[in-house]
């Protein structure tokens, strides 16, 4: 039933969409019905799959680099007091400068291939990952650190055996946000300049007023984003399985 409910909601929305298109006779180039979109997706399956593979590669590489870079920065800031004053401003600026505004520059530097999109996705997830993990690392239960110190633990052991495991729930929150926004980075990168990928294909179809094909690409992008999110979510749940999961709605 848990899995059925979202499906019912989804099917309901699609029906409303199809009904609206049929009843109001909306021109297909303005808003194609879901059936038309599915039809195009089926017809151009191989073309869409090729573009989807490019975008997927960009998203996954961006996630890997952004997570490594973010986790690394957070660890360096948590471990070295001096590094904090150097890295924190960079972190804030990385968020203050609109990453999308950098897209043209990234294309200029890295060309039309996969690289600038990976860079976009990396930049866009760097902040949430770093901020969440660093926050988690800073908020270690002081009692644990006291206990470890009386046990003769080194600073490195306290970081690796207490502060990092204790920060994993916070890190997971950051990574979930990253999983949700990484596709945005990749697609915006494609819009600015590219020759492949779902974002490129959407712009191309937009120019040719093939709105149904645009929607088909959007549909595949949405499915990819949701699957990536749920896979990462499932992996993170296993990683921090020790954390008691409390549903706020069950508290009264």
């Amino acid at each position, binding site marked *: 039933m848990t899995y059925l409910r979202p499906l019912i909601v989804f099917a309901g929305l699609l029906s409303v969409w199809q009904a609206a298109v049929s009843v109001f006779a909306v021109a297909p180039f303005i808003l194609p019905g879901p059936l038309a979109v599915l039809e195009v997706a089926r017809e151009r399956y191989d073309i869409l799959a090729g573009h989807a593979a490019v975008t997927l590669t960009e998203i996954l590489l961006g996630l890997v680099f952004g997570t490594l870079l973010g986790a690394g920065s957070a660890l360096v800031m948590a471990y070295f007091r001096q590094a904090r004053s150097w890295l924190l401003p960079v972190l804030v600026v990385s968020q203050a400068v609109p990453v999308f505004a950098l897209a043209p520059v990234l294309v200029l530097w890295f060309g039309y291939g996969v690289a600038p999109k990976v860079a976009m996705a990396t930049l866009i997830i760097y902040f949430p990952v770093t901020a969440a993990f660093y926050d988690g690392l800073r908020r270690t*239960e002081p*009692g*644990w650190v*006291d*206990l*470890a*110190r*009386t*046990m*003769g*633990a080194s600073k490195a*052991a*306290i970081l690796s*055996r*207490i502060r990092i*495991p*204790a920060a*994993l729930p916070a890190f997971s929150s950051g990574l979930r946000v990253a999983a949700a926004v990484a596709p945005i980075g990749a697609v915006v990168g494609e819009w600015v300049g590219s020759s492949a990928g779902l974002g490129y294909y959407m712009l191309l179809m937009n120019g040719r007023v093939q709105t149904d094909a645009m929607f088909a690409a959007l549909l595949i992008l949405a499915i990819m984003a949701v699957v990536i999110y749920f896979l990462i979510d499932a992996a993170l749940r296993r990683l*921090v399985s*020790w*954390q*008691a999961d409390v549903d706020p709605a069950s508290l009264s």
Partner: protein
Amino acid sequence: MTHAEQDPEPDTRQPGLAIRNARLAWGDTMLMDGVSFSVRAGGWTCLLGESGVGKSTLLRTIAGLVAPIAPTEIVANGSSEFENQIAYMAQQDLLFPWLTAAQNVAAGARLRSEPVDDRRVHEILDRAGVAGRADARPAEMSGGERQRVALARTLMEERPIVLMDEPFSALDAITRMRLQDLAIELLADRTVLMVTHDPFEALRMAEKIHVLRRDGEVRATLVEPAGPPPRDPTDPALRETHGAIMTALGGAPAANRGPA
């Protein structure tokens, strides 16, 4: 048997722990100054006092978690170097939620990257009465079980001096009493200094009680209840000592004092 008086000059014989001229400050506020007392080797001593008197900070200073302020002198077994002789147990169990009970008991060895003696871990868990919970995580255990595991972890460290900061205050009355008895049994050969704000707990468990009271300045008063711990809470002699402690704490019957 019961005598409440100013603690005499620290012993010249080798005590388990001697605290001399303790000075504690919280920021610019002086918490205590010139407090001295001793803790007998192999005995159970309680530091009793109301909240805010500085007893926890004093314990943390002895544990090496807070840098001592001159002229504070802390001497263990005749030496001021006693880094690896102290085990510390706090009010919260401080179990790591991502480790099982057995792994938590071995936390010290894990943190020092030493090999873990699994046989000993299970033996100690058994002595603490939680042998069946070795593979449970803290979230699956009751408060009493968790504190038993924390006690087992303290025991596993094999340190001659054990410092406890209100370790049982978060437990219900019955569980608390069981754990008090268990702690006395398990820590029989250690020098224990326990901080508590509960006079009854101190009376049940301690050979010597240093009552810390702020009266202008903080001073330590020694109370020695009769008989070996753990004492029977229904013993009338205990009630009498309880009265003496309440007087020492400044909580004498209302008739003797103005309105609170």
